[in-house]
């Protein structure tokens, strides 16, 4: 099976993916799939999307040669894909700009979204404001607590942030609540899912909208070092930034790929958010994929210092790429991510999101095993401004609130 041609017509990546939702949503999902398949090849739609990516998002984002970091690590030449420089500060806007255009073409007047770290919520509120659409963002009450700057940002953008206090009060519960809202308001509402999970066609369309990242890396690699990178590293929560970077390069067999999951307090502790590293296949949020569950099939609570990775599932395409062996999935702990956060900030003057810091932490281990003439691309999926309160608190520093 050619990795790049998936999913199949029914939204499957091998045994993964699919459409496991209540009947009410089946027809709206079919309509969305049909609209997307029509519009993605429509030159006017593509031109509109390209224009927004260039002039609103600020693409292309740089592929930055991190020379000091490369010297300090003493291995491969390290290049940072600067998704943190996008409008709203993360890769999430690539997808929300695309889905908002779909919403507009479908005539929907209301946007809903789920969010964990708040980056996708901000990116959704942003595009909704720009199109004059009503926007409701569902966010776990625990996440609201630890990501207050983004909550305020969403409110400034005119969105309503609805706290979700059911279940574990994090991203998975926010997604449940968004699905419940969608099933209730399906006539006028477009659900912008923020990651490559959920029922078909979401894993496919969210991937496609983020694939601009990998396409740029292909071109920029040629410009900067006149060949393909030897390895790619990206963090994986749901996995949208990772699949965006990986997908356009899947057919280049010399390019090794590493997805970095949140190891939390360590895989052995059970306190983590690493379904590919320590979970098994199951069905959650409309697709079959690797999930964290107990022996009775109940979804387990997760732990990560990074709210954006704190999710017990993962995109079904990652599940497939793990089984096929094309991508290696690894994990780093909270502590390793924190150390990488500080290191990148001090050595390169780039404050990464805690999510992206997981990729940096593994990138360091990997770079040191590589040769000096090899090129390693790390996706800096977002900036870390939103995380400074979390980090200060952890280090016993009180910031103005």
């Amino acid at each position, binding site marked *: 099976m050619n990795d790049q041609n998936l999913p199949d017509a*029914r939204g499957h990546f091998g045994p993964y993916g*699919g*459409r*496991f*939702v*209540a*009947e*009410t*949503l*089946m*027809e*709206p999902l079919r309509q969305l799939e049909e609209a997307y398949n029509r519009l993605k090849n429509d030159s006017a739609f593509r031109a509109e999307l390209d224009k927004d990516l260039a002039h609103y998002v600020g693409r292309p984002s740089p592929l930055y040669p991190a020379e000091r970091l490369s010297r300090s690590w003493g291995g491969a030449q390290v290049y940072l894909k600067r998704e943190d420089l996008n409008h709203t500060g993360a890769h999430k806007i690539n997808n929300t700009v695309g889905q908002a255009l779909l919403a507009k073409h479908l005539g929907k007047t209301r946007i809903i979204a789920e969010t964990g770290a708040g980056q996708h919520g901000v990116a959704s509120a942003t595009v909704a404001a720009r199109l004059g659409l009503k926007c409701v963002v569902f966010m776990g009450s625990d996440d609201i607590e630890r990501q207050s700057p983004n909550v305020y940002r969403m409110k400034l953008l005119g969105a309503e942030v609805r706290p979700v206090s*059911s*279940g574990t009060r994090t991203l*998975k*519960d926010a*997604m*449940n609540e968004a*699905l*419940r809202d969608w*099933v*209730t*308001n*399906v*006539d006028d509402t477009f659900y912008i899912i923020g990651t490559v999970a959920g029922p078909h066609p979401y894993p496919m369309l969210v991937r496609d909208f983020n694939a601009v990242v990998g396409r740029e890396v292909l071109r920029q690699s040629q410009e900067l070092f006149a060949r393909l990178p030897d390895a790619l590293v990206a963090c994986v929560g749901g996995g949208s930034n990772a699949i965006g970077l990986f997908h356009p390069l899947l057919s280049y067999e010399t390019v090794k790929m590493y997805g970095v999951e949140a190891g939390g307090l360590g895989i052995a502790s059970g306190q983590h958010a690493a379904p590919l590293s320590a979970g098994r296949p*199951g*069905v*959650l*949020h*409309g697709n079959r994929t690797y*999930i964290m*569950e107990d*022996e*009775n*099939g*109940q*979804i387990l609570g997760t732990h990560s210092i990074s709210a954006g990775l704190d999710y017990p599932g993962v995109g079904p395409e990652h599940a497939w790429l793990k089984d096929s062996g094309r991508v290696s999935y690894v994990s780093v702990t909270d502590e390793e991510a924190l150390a990488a956060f500080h290191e990148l900030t001090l050595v390169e003057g780039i404050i990464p999101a805690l999510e992206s810091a997981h990729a940096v932490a593994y990138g360091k281990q990997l770079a040191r095993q590589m040769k000096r003439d090899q090129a390693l691309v790390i996706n800096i999926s977002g900036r870390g401004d939103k995380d400074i309160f979390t980090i200060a608190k952890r280090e016993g520093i009180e910031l103005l609130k």
Partner: protein
Amino acid sequence: MSRIKAVFDALHASGRKGLVPYITAGDPHPQYTVGLMHALVRGGADVIELGVPFSDPMADGPVIQLACERALVHGTSLWQVLEMVAEFRRTDSATPVVLMGYLNPIEARGYEEFARRARAAGVDGVLVVDLAVEEAPGIAPVFRNAGLDCIFLLAPTSSGARIRAVAEQASGYLYYVSLKGVTGAATLDVASVADKLAEIRTHTRLPLAVGFGIRDAASAAQVGRVADAVVVGSALVSQIEKHQNEPAVLPELLTRQLGALRGALDAQ
């Protein structure tokens, strides 16, 4: 003939409408579930839908979400739910029991193993909320081969083509979701339900049960005029929630509450 078919045939022959109560197994505590099932039968239940609790019930409103949480606090598992059904069967061999829930707890235990054990326990049908017909071909036959009826949902958004596809794989009855929304929602538009049921009947002869939004005798009677059966869930589960700390009173309360619906349905 399946127990479910026998019940609907008898209802049809006598010109009566079916009453299908839902409760979540293990709510408020696993030890009370079998007693509550018998109480529902005394109140006039024709079929019992027994909810299998799940940590992420994405199609359910707050009432049943909380019921799942109460059941899961006590560790109610799929195998325990089957034990409850087996115990219920010791004194009730007539009332069909349909397990209603989500796919993952079943997938985690394995479809063959589940189907075999469910049948042995006396389960009659399975309604998996997040199993659409498109994903059912590898799963529904396993249930059917074990002698379990596969009950599927239909919704206001279901097209004619979908209704046909669903009816082809379904047996026992079809569960029509009366509104766009989650369980326990407030609004019910009987005229549009009647229109959709008429459309569905052009595609299938399976009995049609209608649920979501039926909370009292009046709404049950209204829906009973157009459906073959009415499903009531959140209204019962709200009672359980209210009296969770005095579970001894629950059987009598549920019998009475369901009895009022039974009366309204039979009065037509």
